[in-house]
Structure formats: C-alpha cells, structure tokens
C-alpha cells in the first residue's frame, strides 16, 4: 500500500513538474520503455522464459493503434487498448505451439517469430505501407497519458507479483516440475505470463507510435528485442523495481549520448558486455527496492 502511494506521488511529480519540451520527451520515452521492459520482466525475470522477439508485440500494438486511429478515426484510448489486445491475441496463437519449447529453444524460436511478424508487417504493404513506414499518427502520447498509463501498469504489476499469480509464475520459473506437482497447470502458467507481457509490449508500442507520429518495421527489429531483454537482465532478473530503474537508466544514458550519435551504439554495446562481465546479477539481484529498506539489505536471497 505504501509502495502504491509512493508510485502515485512519483507519477504526479513526473506528470506535473514544469519541464521543457526536451525533458518532457525523455520522460515520455522512459515511460514507454519501462512499460515494455515490465512486460518482458514478467516473462523473463519472473517466469524464466527468455525472449528475443518481444519487439514484435510492440510492433503489433503500434500498427494496430496507428491503423485504427488514422484509417478508421477511432479515439486513441480504445485504440491503445486494442493495440494491447492485438498483441495478446497474436501471442496466444503463437504461444499454443511454441511455449512447450523450453530453455534456449524458446529464445531461439522467439527470434524467428519476432522477425517473422516484423517481415509480415513489412510485406503487407496495403495495410501498413511496408518498410517506408506509417506516417501521420496523431501525437496522442502526451506526457500526461504516458505517465498515467505507466504508473497504472506499474501498480498493477507490483500488486500482481504480490499475489497468487506472482507465486505461480515464480514457482514455474524456479522449478517447473515441482510446480506441476504442486497443482499448477504449468503450460497455462507460461501462457498467462506470455499474454500479460505481450499486452504490456503492445501498449508500449501503441504509445511509441503516438509519441513519434511515425512508425516503421525496422524500429521493432531483433536489436530492439535484445535491448528489452538486456534491460531486464541489467535491472536484475526477478526484480521489478530493478527493471524500472534499469530501463530508466539505459534510456537516460542513451539520450545523454544522442549528440554523438555515431558513438551511441558503441557505448550501448560496451555497456551490455560490461554489465554481463562485472554484474551479471544486475542492479538489484532478485530483490526489490523496499527489501533493502526493510531488512537493511541483509535479507539473504542467494
């Protein structure tokens, strides 16, 4: 409860603190990235399913929302929600056959699935205008919209993780056989995690479209998918506050180096390697921010 009030206060500060246009943009982008990263964190950090294709669900959300608002004049709020559910629908169709794959094999399959979805979007010219991109999206992602949606989803996420579904996901992450012998329908558990994470990514993509006013299939390639998983690992697998902090940190660092753009990707690459080499457990390990406050950082979570 305290945590949710804390999140709401942060939200109000982010939404109403007087800032210039540039800082506003950074806040919007941070919120968008955090939403997608939270989705991947639920799947990768809390259910133990590694994905390298979740940018595709962002693409599905972005294109669904863009097509609904531009072509059919739908209001942006139902369109964003539709974007989330389109990602859920496709994730469900894909998940039925592929979620039985475990370990590295699902990660590899997700590369294929992510690229396949992107290529279908790219080749479906009549609907998506192909690789030239989809321009003219109403800039509906204001700072207010982005922050509200982010804070709402963050509260939902933390609440969910502190309930029966959170324990269910963690059980199937830590030991899927033990989980099934404790009465969990583990294929369904994995599906739940995939659908929730696809929803988050879909919403994130929808907001990204509204922020950029222009979307292109190449924005949602394997690089973007890798970035999402890398952020979750950077924050600490199994730590949602770590995911949010890590996502914000990476977004800010990348923005800071925007002026020397040719070095930006180089720095990103170095960052990935350095994090993996020197702190593979990520910023937070599997602890949450308040675990440090409660137990003075002594809680043993080995």
């Amino acid at each position, binding site marked *: *409860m305290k945590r*949710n009030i804390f999140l709401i206060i942060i939200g109000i500060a982010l939404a109403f603190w007087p800032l210039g246009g540039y800082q506003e943009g950074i806040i919007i982008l941070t919120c968008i990235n955090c939403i997608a990263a939270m989705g991947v964190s639920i799947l990768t950090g809390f259910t133990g399913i590694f994905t390298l294709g979740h940018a595709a669900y962002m693409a599905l959300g972005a294109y669904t929302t863009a097509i609904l608002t531009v072509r059919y004049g739908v209001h942006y709020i139902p369109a964003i929600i539709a974007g989330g559910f389109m990602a859920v629908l496709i994730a469900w169709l894909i998940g039925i056959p592929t979620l039985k794959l475990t370990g590295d094999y699902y990660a590899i399959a997700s590369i294929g699935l992510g690229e396949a979805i992107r290529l279908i979007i790219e080749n479906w010219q009549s609907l998506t205008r192909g690789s030239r991109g989809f321009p003219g999206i109403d800039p509906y992602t204001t700072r207010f919209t982005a922050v509200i949606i982010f804070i709402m989803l963050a509260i*939902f996420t933390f*609440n*969910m993780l*502190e*309930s*029966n*579904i*959170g*324990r*269910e996901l*963690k*059980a199937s992450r*830590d*030991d899927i*056989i*033990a989980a*099934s*012998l*404790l*009465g*969990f*329908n*583990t294929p369904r558990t994995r599906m739940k995690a995939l659908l929730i994470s696809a929803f988050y990514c879909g919403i994130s993509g929808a907001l990204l479209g509204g922020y950029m006013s222009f979307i292109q299939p190449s924005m949602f390639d394997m690089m973007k998918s890798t970035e999402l998983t890398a952020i979750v690992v950077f924050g600490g697998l*199994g730590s949602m506050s770590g995911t949010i902090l890590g996502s914000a940190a990476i977004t800010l660092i990348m923005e800071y180096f925007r002026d020397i753009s040719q070095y930006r990707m180089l720095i990103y690459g170095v960052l990935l390697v350095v994090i993996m080499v020197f702190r593979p457990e990520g910023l937070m390990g*599997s602890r949450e921010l308040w675990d440090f406050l409660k137990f003075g950082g002594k*809680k*043993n*979570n*080995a």
Partner: protein
Amino acid sequence: MLELVNIDMAFGGVKALDHMSFKISDGSITGIIGPNGAGKTTIFNVITGVYSPTAGKIFLNGRDITPLKAYQINRLGIARTFQNLRLFTRSSVLENVMTAAQNHYINSYRENFLGSIQPAVKPDPKINYGFFDALLHLGRWRNSERTLKLNSLELLARVGLADRADQAAGTLPYGMQRRLEIARALALSPEILLLDEPAAGMNPEEVFELNNLITGIHKDFKLTILVIEHHMDLIMNICPHVICLNFGEKIAEGSGSEIQNNPEVLAAYLGTGEEEI
C-alpha cells in the same frame, strides 16, 4: 484407496517397472524399499503423473487417473516430496508453503454437457481469488492472503520451522529443507502423501524427530502415506506394511518382520552388497 494394476514403465528398452501391482488402503502407512535402481522413485513418478506408464492403470478411489496430467492428479489429493530436494530456493520459507497452499482444491461435482453429474475439484473459496482481485488488491485479495498466511504459518510451526519463515529456503540446513518439503506438501491438504527418502542426509537425532513427525501428521491430517526409505529403522518403526522392489518388480509385500526374513529380499540386498539392512 490407491491401486496400481499391472503397471509397466519402459525408458527406451529399459524396463523400470514390470507388471507392478499393489493396493494402498486408506489411512495406512506403507514403506517401499529396494536396492538402488529398483524403480522406487519411478513408482512415485508414475503415480503423480510425471511419467505416464507404458501399460497398466492407476485408480484413485475407483477412478482411473492414468491419463491425467500431473497437476490434475495433484488436485485430486496426491502430494509428494522429492528425493533430490525441489524447493523454490530463492523464495522465503513462508512463500514456499504459501505457493502450495494457494492450490488447495476441494472435492466437488460438476454437471457435464450431457447433464450427468461428474466428480470434479474446485478451488477452495476461502483462499481463491481472481486476476482482477490480484491486480487491484481488493478485499478478497486481503482476506484470502491473510488466511493463506495463517494456514501456512501454522504448518510451519507443525514441522518446527516457524522461526525460519522469512529466511530464503535455499539457506536452510539440509534436514530443515526436508521438513519444509513435507510442510509444502501438507499445504495442499492431500489425502495421500508420498515421501521420497525423507530421511536422506539426516543424522540419527533428526531421523528420530522425523519419525515422530510422520506418525504425528499421519494421525492429525488423516493421511495415507507411502514412504520410500533406505533407513530400515525408520521403515520398521513407522510402516506396518512394506513393499520390496528389485529390478522394477515387486518381490515381496507384507509386515516388516515378514519382509526382513524373506529370502528373496535378503538376496536382493546381499546381491548388491551396498545397502544397509
């Protein structure tokens, strides 16, 4: 009542179980013994649905559970512990028990599409809540979580781990981890409890405590217990009925003293020359 009828289990060409048949009556404690590789754990894996048997059938209270999946069998009231501990080591001790306790299912009935009444299970309404209760932390979430927590703490007290509730399960000493597994299995309120080498790695004192714990929970929770064990003292103390396996076949069944004097059993153990009997 649990009944195995002519169970065969083959992995590739290797027969792990060969025409295994036995009955476990309600409320009994049955010991399963046998040399390494005799197929003891395979029996548990077949009963709990980890493997589906190559041939044969398993009945629980007259119902054929052979085609069911592991989680369905579990919900019908069969819980187990593992020879190689399978705790959620990163989660707290309390969370381990709560994870199991939230899966408490109660027997119920369901009307199928033809209108006939079928036995089924449904989630315990006292601890069950939905997705949106979880998202929003509504009142049902609060009440159910409180009940879950109290029930789980009670179980932890029963196995002597109440003061360890907040510790990460992986940091417990070995003997305590074994008892935590028992608490976790009990949290499912099973009718039948399968214990796979619960005394492995314990010192004599701990084995003695375990002895009391098993007989205690057997009485208090009205359980039917199957226990695989190498400690013959434990088996002889708590199991009025013992089944002995060798090479996937049942070679003897009877009371403890009958088994100890059975020439085939002696041959099986002396033949391998590794086990203490």
